[in-house]
């Protein structure tokens, strides 16, 4: 089940160009979406399906701000309304393609999949984009054959770093012993904690003496459907035993990650990672970029294996453990919003037919 009234990330802004052939297709929450840029630069999102005989509009041709279906030549404006049907003088009212509100922010393209009247840009999650002053970030994209709910399990519980990311982000089993407190936000959870006195992660271990110890200050903002904004700051190990670290800041990093469900069992994953200009040093951003991709392939391997088992054992009981508080809270928010939408849809369906016909 997918939320309708939510902003879904449809990719990095540079993925939708202004060229003649830049007709980008996305699968978002069970719907096929066409993205293109108008001559003014505005991104248009519309159903990738001609209302005549369901031909993909992404196989069509850009004409100014409009798109022509290359099956029977129907021309649709950026508002989805049909402007021209070759050989037919008067255009039927229902010759229109559904369009979706679009906002570009923090380097991402956001598409609202629900009621356009409710598309409030303030609901778009906070993120640090690749053009944010003071930051040096690299972007990337991966597809994973798992459900977005399993991605929530993965991202709301970072204890998996010690195990899944054994050769990249982990340097010890310390992540397996953290027990963070998660606070609720209107559309997700927010979590701050410090992992203290741990060895360097394996991918940078060669840069430090063996006995070097670090404090990692973590700040996670996770929001529906599955957007994960992470401030991950590496400090020299301090001597504080609670609260924030008091060790010297070595590397301040930000990672903005948007997981967009394509359909059940498959997601697009858009992510960035990088450092603040103050803590940047030669070679580090490239190393982080490469390692991040390697680490996400590690996630992909376990998540796709997990999803395969879930298909083989449908409905098999699963147990909870101490690391499930984050996912538990996130699902509580998501499922509440899903239930509200279902109730609304039911109430609408129960309306007298005449009223529906009028609207």
């Amino acid at each position, binding site marked *: 089940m997918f939320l309708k009234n939510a902003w879904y990330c449809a990719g990095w802004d540079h993925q939708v160009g202004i060229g003649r052939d830049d007709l980008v297709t996305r699968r978002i929450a069970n719907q096929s979406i066409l993205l293109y840029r108008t001559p003014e630069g505005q991104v248009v999102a519309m159903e990738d399906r001609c209302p005549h005989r369901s031909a993909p509009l992404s196989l069509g041709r850009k004409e100014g701000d409009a798109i022509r279906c290359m099956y029977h030549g129907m021309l649709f404006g950026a508002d989805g309304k049909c402007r021209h049907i070759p050989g037919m003088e008067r255009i039927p009212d229902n010759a229109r393609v559904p369009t979706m509100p679009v906002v570009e922010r923090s380097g991402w393209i956001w598409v609202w999949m629900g009621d356009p009247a409710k598309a409030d840009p303030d609901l778009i999650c906070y993120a640090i984009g690749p053009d944010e002053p003071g930051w040096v970030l690299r972007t990337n994209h991966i597809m994973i054959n798992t459900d977005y709910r399993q991605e929530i399990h993965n991202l709301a519980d970072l204890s998996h770093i010690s195990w899944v990311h054994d050769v990249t982000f982990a340097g010890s089993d310390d992540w397996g012993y953290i027990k963070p407190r998660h606070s609720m936000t209107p559309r997700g959870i927010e979590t701050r904690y410090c992992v203290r006195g741990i060895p360097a992660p394996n991918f940078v271990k060669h840069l430090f003496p063996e006995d070097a110890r670090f404090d990692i200050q973590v700040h996670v903002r996770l929001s529906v459907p599955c957007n994960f904004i992470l401030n991950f700051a590496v400090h020299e190990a301090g001597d504080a035993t609670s609260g924030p670290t008091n060790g010297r800041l070595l590397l301040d990093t930000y990672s903005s990650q948007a997981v967009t469900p394509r359909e059940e069992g498959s997601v697009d994953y858009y992510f960035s990672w990088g450092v603040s200009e103050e803590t940047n040093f030669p070679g580090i951003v490239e190393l982080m970029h490469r390692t991040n991709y390697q680490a996400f392939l590690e996630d992909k391997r376990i998540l796709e294996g997990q999803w395969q088992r879930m298909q083989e054992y449908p409905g098999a009981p699963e147990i909870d453990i101490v690391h499930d508080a984050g996912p*538990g809270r996130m699902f509580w928010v998501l499922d509440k919003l899903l239930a509200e939408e279902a109730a609304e849809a039911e109430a609408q369906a129960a309306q007298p037919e005449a009223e529906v016909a009028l609207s």
Partner: protein
Amino acid sequence: MNGSWIEARVVGKQPAARDITRLVLEAAGGGPLPPFAAGAHIDIELPNGLIRQYSLCGSPACTERYELGILLEPEGRGGSRAVHELIGEGDRVRISPPRNLFPLAAEGHALLLAGGIGVTPILAMAERLHLDGRGFALHYCVRSADRAAFAERLAAAPYADAVQLHYDDRPDTALDMAALLERAPNDAHLYVCGPAGFIDFVTRSAAERGWPDARVHIERFAATPEEAGANQPFEIEIASSGQVITVRADQTAAAALAEAGIEIPLSCEQGVCGTCLTEVAAGVPDHRDLYLSADEHAANDCFTPCCSRALSARLVLHI
């Protein structure tokens, strides 16, 4: 979790004591069931769709049938009620192969301590120890004689001399934990199964006498309110508003809060996952979860309202 379900048939269902049913299962297609070690349990899929874990209480030497003892928990979530009310002789049920989280140590004298329905894995252990000719003593604590399931079987067992029953309503039979632990041989292992309070009492007594954890083995039931009627009502005060909410004996703190319009995020509802963790400003919680560590319990600055209650008359919460 369960690789392969086994089709089983209920071949016996009899009362074993007040509120306790004895269930006997055989392989639906005939033939032996997978062998099990003493202390093992199985999952059973109940007619109402719930899946529950119950210990195997028959002799581990017998693979012809599995035997279970199940306590009716009227305030539970419907698992035990389904067994008592919906399952009958001749019915087919699906079960998992046995799993053992409560195995006997390879050697050493065994002190077996059972509280109430916690006797089930302990029975299988006694059978195994007897068959292997190992020394053991079984202490079985129950609220009253009519609740002592399998008492007749124990009285007739060849190892009856090693069994002692303790009744809460008969002080002359009280278990002297201190004496028991002090008299135990040096190589003795302690095996405890029962309600959380019973396990806590036994493990605390052992810890006070310096028993190493490696020689103390426990099997907890899911951390649901285990003893209907034992719960006391208490009050919750919301620190920010001063609102006072009464938690009835028959409901959880989270349910009482929900009734008052205060929704707490819930997930496992068994005190395992910590999703409902709530800050405590004042008062002493009665911690019944597995999420918090002993130190975190002792700090009393948070609790899990899905299953934990209060030792003080009122808890003040930051929500």
